[in-house]
């Protein structure tokens, strides 16, 4: 068993947990957290599949994808949280 396989399985595990919570949870903040965990899982699977254990080098193209994904995700999270806060504020009044 190689260490790459460990991270493949961990990434897929994160993905499964996040999908399960996305499907079963009604709380907005928890769903946004699940979306973030889902993105981390996908990033981990991508990076693990780009890693070459023979040379120890990781393919720079998936690295750039994941880096882009992290920045886009924080922007999406901030916009979603602003929407969630707005929704919460309007349901209280």
């Amino acid at each position: 068993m190689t260490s790459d396989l460990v991270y493949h399985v961990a990434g897929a595990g994160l993905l499964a947990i996040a999908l399960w919570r996305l499907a079963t949870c009604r709380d907005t903040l928890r769903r946004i957290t699940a979306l973030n965990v889902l993105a981390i899982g996908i990033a981990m699977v991508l990076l693990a599949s780009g890693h070459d254990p023979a040379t120890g080098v990781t393919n720079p193209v998936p690295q750039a994808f994941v880096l882009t994904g992290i920045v886009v995700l924080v922007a999406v999270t901030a916009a979603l949280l602003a929407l969630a806060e707005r929704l919460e504020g309007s349901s209280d009044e």
Partner: protein
Amino acid sequence: MIAFDLALAAGILLCAVSALTRRDRTASVAAFMVLGLLVALSWVRLAAPDVALAEAAIGAGLTGALFLRAARRLGPLRPAAGRTLAVPAALVASGLGGGLAWVFASASPPAIYAPLVAASLPESGVSNPVTAVLLNFRAWDTLLEIAVLVVALLVANLLGSRRLVPVSLGEMTLPFARIVAPISILLAGHLLWQGSSAPGGAFQAGAVLAGGLLALVLAGLAPTGTLVVRGALIAGLSGLAVFLIAALGSEALTGSLLGYPNRAEKVWIVAIEAALTLSIAATLCLLFTGFEKRKTS
């Protein structure tokens, strides 16, 4: 090292379960932040230090701060109403996860891109392959990514997200902010400059700078006038403007969009990255602090 990898993977999965099942919001966000840091560690193990830096600064740090702010504003978790299809959802999710793990683990790694990037690296003007991909070979993607940041900033502005009012944190915050803010500026400059040859770059530098700014805001040291917020908004939008001007300029000079002139690639890349660093820092800071002053009710 396999024992370390196994322990790390177990820790990551435990943190994810904890972040998504704890009923206490603060505990859930804390677990999410620990998850981000452990994931960053695992990406160092996967030889991706650029991504690990970004995950630690943005994924764990800033996203965690955003979640804490939202947790405070949204109030405690409400009990779930109605019946959910927990068992079928768990079956489908674990099936998808297992299938994906099997497909990715059994597929051979694509052998096209890495040699291509390595072969064209001398032409890119920088020696860090990730920076070369981000700002030269696939600069289009990065341009659109900055456009996404601008859209998020505009959405938050249009929604009138409430301005954060920092609570006085006590005696130690002032010296802490005085030490952290200058160090974050130095660190951001260092990350920006070394991004062309070693792990680092505009996103990591911008996130670190935003962290320093937030330390100032939370210590109550940052000016909060309307003019300052407008200035920060303009700084946030300027990254996309500079990137677009650079794209049009390179089109005029070389005839290809974002195809930098020969032997001046590094100057172009570092100039664009410097503008992006300031813009990303201002954007992330504004997304956290909000725009409108709290209405007195």
